[in-house]
């Protein structure tokens, strides 16, 4: 009996733990609840009572105010989508390929290449942004989404992630038997190794997508024309003069910029949490 009690733990401690966890959960959700609910309320209602848990009926009015200015949510959405999908595809494919080179073949510079990847993984892109900008300017790629997509071929932290996964789950015997069956190396990678890597590619794909979608620094340097701006760059317009005191429209705009992320998150949260636990997530 006493043993059972110990397993259950102290009820006061347990109550305290749940209390703190519930407070933290409310803290995580509350700002977004205010945002979504206020996007349905009129500016007048918000000015009377800024917090309400009851949605109102002014979503369409807010939409009209929101889209009536120079903010074009469709353009921002499409630009973000192009960049995020393009960068994710390149990162996932080429990082898997590079990891495959590191795991499936023994070559002289393999160890050196891996150490090198570990070192450059840490360098934040902010500190080399000026050189990157001038280089892009010289080759006329500023205000071009390709400048944000092509560099995704080089993603050292993804290579690291795939290498760890491959060491654990890619049987090299399988590659040998494919060779004996006459499969060429590139074909073996695409048709035998890649399917085995699918779970890891999905996890890394989600993180690359979210990271690219959210990125602000590089796009705000490279994209100055409105028609190529991505969602996070456009968000600053919500704070500017054009929506001064149009709170309903501001909340609606914010809600729209993050809505795709909520959809992705709640559909895939199981994989995302598992992916974070595996490490190697930070862009």
């Amino acid at each position, binding site marked *: 009996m006493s043993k059972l009690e110990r397993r*259950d*733990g102290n009820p006061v401690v347990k109550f305290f733990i*749940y209390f703190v*966890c519930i407070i*933290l*959960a409310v803290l*995580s*959700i509350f*700002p977004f609840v205010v*945002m979504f609910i206020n996007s349905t309320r009129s500016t007048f209602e*918000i000015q009377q*009572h*800024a*917090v309400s848990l009851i949605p109102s009926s002014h979503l369409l009015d807010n939409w009209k105010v929101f889209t009536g200015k120079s903010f074009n949510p469709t353009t921002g959405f499409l630009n973000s989508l192009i960049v995020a999908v393009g960068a994710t595809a390149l990162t996932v494919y080429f990082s898997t390929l*590079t990891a495959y080179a590191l795991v*499936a*073949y*023994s*070559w002289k*510079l*393999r160890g050196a*290449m891996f150490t090198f990847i570990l070192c450059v993984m*840490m*360098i*934040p892109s*902010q*500190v*080399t*942004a*000026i*050189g990157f*900008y*001038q*280089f892009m300017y*010289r080759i006329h790629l500023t205000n071009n989404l390709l400048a944000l997509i*092509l*560099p995704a*071929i*080089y993603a050292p932290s993804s290579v690291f992630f795939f290498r760890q996964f491959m060491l654990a789950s890619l049987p090299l015997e399988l590659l*040998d038997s494919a*060779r004996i069956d006459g499969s060429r*190396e590139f074909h073996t990678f695409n048709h035998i190794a890649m399917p085995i890597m699918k779970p890891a590619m999905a996890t890394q794909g989600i993180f690359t997508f979210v990271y690219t979608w*959210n990125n*602000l*620094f590089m796009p705000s340097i490279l994209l100055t024309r409105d028609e190529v701006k991505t*969602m*996070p*760059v456009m*968000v*600053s317009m919500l*704070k500017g003069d054009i929506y001064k005191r149009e709170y309903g429209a501001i*909340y609606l705009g*914010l809600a729209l*910029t*993050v809505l795709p992320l*909520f959809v*992705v998150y709640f559909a895939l*949260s199981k994989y995302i949490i598992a992916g*974070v636990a595996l*490490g190697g997530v930070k862009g």
Partner: protein
Amino acid sequence: MNNTLQKKHGFSYAKYGYLFSLPFFIAFLVFNLYPTLYTVVLGFTDSKGLGNITFHILKDDPWKNFRTVLKAPTFILSIKNTLMLWMMNFIPQITLALILTAWFTSRRNKVRGQGFFKVVFYMPNIITAASVAVLFNTLFGYPKGPVNDLLVSAGLRDGAFNFMNSPTATRWIIAFIQFWMWYGYTMIVLISGVLGINPEIYEAAEIDGANDRQIFFRITLPNLRTILTYTLVTSLIGGLSMYDIPKMLNAGNPNNSTLTATMFIYNQSFQNSYMYARGAAASMILFLIIAVLSAIVFYLMRDRK
């Protein structure tokens, strides 16, 4: 296995190793190494002006930009702000993450609903930081904003408080947002670290009659050393290149009290006079600071055994 097969066929597969890592390496040379060297060189030039890509190396006084930047009070302030903001968020963040880790992995107190709590605590991390910052700017609005509304109706304040006009309040709001976005991530990483520790060690400790506190400090914490180092270094690098939240929350105001180092670099290079050379020099100084501090962390956290 691989090696033996290679010998048997008298054919080397090594070239595929080089071939398949080639795209990665080329992309590194073009999109990373070249821009990095370019930035280094720009630091020693007179490069400035929007759309002007001609520049001259400062032959007489090559370190001029570095001196100007190091003497600029705004740059020194921005470095101080950045470090302060990072510490104000990281200390509470790692503390809370460790407490939650101890709770969620305790073998005596099984906490139910962990899956739900993990999903909710991690959620703010994947939401666009730019949008989150603007949202908080609106939530802390003056005179009519949700936070002021709650404070006044709860009787905690007589009138609305202008948060965005107070350096202390703005700094704490930024630190809070960073904390709020990252503690869930840190917690999940630490929990997975604890789950990787050999359960036999815990069983032995329980048989020996160790209590929860002793188990946490004597077993869990020492075994998390590598993961804690990783968390500390990645958070430090992320914190020192902090940009999105201070920029979008209050653009470094009031009085540059929330101006960070990357915001300084951005303002030098991409606003007003477009002083690329000065921004490049500041970038290199920031890079050096990051490298030195990371090295210090690795040194302090090394395994002394």
